[in-house]
């Protein structure tokens, strides 16, 4: 009874939020539900097979790709597709769709320990841990420690994890039921020291090792090599529509889970993943005042920015860098100096967002010519040809609200 009331009130709140244009309604809807019935997560997850996807970068896309892979194999899926990944968002997603037996849920990395038990999760899918919004989240190590507690106290849960990320590997500990997939480590700056003994990690081209305590990259049955996922049953070409190496990594993690844990048919699963063009506004386009479309890319932290810039560098066209520093972006934009904006030297560039001047100073010292225009759409309109807008989180949600 209480659960029913909570669901009803929550849906009403979500409808009001959407109708008044305040947001997607998921967050407020879930908050109302949980306020009325704190046991709601348990209730709405009861009897379902729950998979939790978490990472610093890529969790929304990985969740979507896994959901689509399984749907293509004929499995009905419930998922929090709008990226509302805290307990309220998870409750709202599950409450909205009571039918499907399988739930693929993106969970904020800090919240994983709090929701594993209420959801009675069956499988944990762990992508990567890098620096992200240090003023809010604390440091990489503290999140790895929280995940480690989950692994240590849930010996029966299945884990699918990225073997190339030292913090992820450490967070899984000596867990017995792990499927490792080596996704490669393009961003190593947040993993200089060994998570086990704090000694200096040694990196070879494709693996890490600690000479002090022997902590080392685990052998993995699954491995991403360029666009190919190497699996025990043979090589699989990903050929996604989604751009960039980072999405190959998301897809490799999703496909490994689909194959190794859900026994999915590879061809059908791939078909589902390849059909994905836009994920919660990511890679969507914005119409400019002159009729052109600008593609919008999300970059939340140094690792994410670096991946996006490497992808953009060989491409033609202009670039708008739209940076805010609200709580959801991280209030300290010092990280701008850890990102190789020098890669943009040959392009037309605009410094934009509420922190356009921080971006501009960074570009100036990096020898990148640029204009300064705080409004990203106006900035894009001032640049010639094809335009990509790379946006921090709150800039991104503002620009892509229509396409969610």
């Amino acid at each position, binding site marked *: 009874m209480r659960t029913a009331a909570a669901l009803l009130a929550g849906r009403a709140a979500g409808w009001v939020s959407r109708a008044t244009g305040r947001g997607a309604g998921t967050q407020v809807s879930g908050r109302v539900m949980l306020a009325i019935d704190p046991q709601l997560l348990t209730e709405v997850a009861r009897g379902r097979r729950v998979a939790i996807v978490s990472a610093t970068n890529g969790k929304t896309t990985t969740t979507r790709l896994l959901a689509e892979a399984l749907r293509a194999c004929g499995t009905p899926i419930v998922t929090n597709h709008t990226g509302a990944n805290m307990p309220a968002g998870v409750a709202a997603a599950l409450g909205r769709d009571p039918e499907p037996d399988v739930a693929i849920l993106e969970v904020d990395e800090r919240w994983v320990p709090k929701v594993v038990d209420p959801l009675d999760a069956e499988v944990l899918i762990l992508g990567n841990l890098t*620096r992200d919004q*240090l*003023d809010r989240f604390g*440091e*990489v*190590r503290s999140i790895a420690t929280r995940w480690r507690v989950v692994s240590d106290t849930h010996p029966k849960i299945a884990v699918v994890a990225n073997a190339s990320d030292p913090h992820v590997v450490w967070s899984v500990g000596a867990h017995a039921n792990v499927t490792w997939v080596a996704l490669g480590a393009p961003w190593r*700056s947040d993993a*200089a*020291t060994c998570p086990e003994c*704090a*000694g*200096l990690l040694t990196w070879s081209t494709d693996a890490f090792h600690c000479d002090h305590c022997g902590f080392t990259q685990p052998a993995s049955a699954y491995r991403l090599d360029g666009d190919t996922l190497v699996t025990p049953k043979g090589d699989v070409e990903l050929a996604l529509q989604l751009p960039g190496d980072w999405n190959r990594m998301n897809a490799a993690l999703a496909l490994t889970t689909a194959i190794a844990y859900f026994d999915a048919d590879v061809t059908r699963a791939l078909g589902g993943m390849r059909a994905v063009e836009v994920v919660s506004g990511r890679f969507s386009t914005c119409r400019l005042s002159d009729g052109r479309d600008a593609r919008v890319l999300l970059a939340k932290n140094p690792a994410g920015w670096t991946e996006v810039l490497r992808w953009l560098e060989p491409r033609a066209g202009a670039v708008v860098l739209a940076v805010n520093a609200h709580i959801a972006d991280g*209030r*300290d934009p*010092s*990280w*701008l*100096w*850890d990102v190789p904006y020098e890669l943009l030297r040959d392009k037309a560039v605009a410094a934009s967002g509420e922190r356009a*001047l*921080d971006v*501009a*100073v*960074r570009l*100036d*010292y*990096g020898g990148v010519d640029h204009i*300064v225009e705080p409004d990203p759409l106006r900035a894009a309109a001032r640049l010639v040809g094809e335009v990509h807008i790379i946006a921090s989180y709150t800039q991104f949600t503002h620009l892509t609200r229509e396409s969610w």
Partner: protein
Amino acid sequence: MTRDSAVRVGLVFPELLGTYGDRGNAVVLVERCRRRAIEAELVEVAAGEPIPASLDIYLFGGGEDDAQVMAAAGMCASRLAIDAARAHGAVVFAVCAGLQLLGSTYEASGGRILDGLGLVDLSTRSGDGRLIGECVVQPDASTGLPILTGFENHGGRTTLGPGVTPLGRVTVGRGNGVDGVDGVLADHLLGTYLHGPALPRNPALADHLLAWVLGEDALTPIDDQLVDRLRAERLHDAQLTGLAARRRDWHLNRG
């Protein structure tokens, strides 16, 4: 003053002490030399390598707990080289974890009290809660520096020994978290809790360090209009933050 060699700006252990864009401080120092047609070079000292005595400026940045302990070990092992460099006029600029390591002791995770380099008389303990937010520092008058803007994010409480001069008085934020001051100031040595990073936001501070190496006369003016706009924006923002904090404290005191 003329030099027969490039200014060597050393970024010490960037993998360990580079959590908060600390590389930016090195980039700014090198670039401000080049804009004055003074040769400069960025030297990265990788973690695990000895710190050479041949650098003109030593930059110690911010880092996570474990990384700070590793960095401290490496720095203490190279103590003789650092001393030799300083005896020849080299400059030390340290931020956050780096500032803590200038002192005699600091507190690592689990409450362990460990030795720092002991270049100046200060010591750091962990405090109750992290100090996070925009921070404004009125520098010690002897420096002639304008007001400094930055962003602090740390859990340390740093106490200066008797007679040790802070970098300045904190007008917004907490700085050292003790006595209303930030950082430390000594001959050819400067430490602060300010990120942002500090030198991109405060070009005069960058030039202050360069003057120690090159002499005042070498520092011809540079067009800093863009940075000045950023500084005005940040200082305005910090004043609003500061007002809000004071209003909150006032309400707390009443309640």
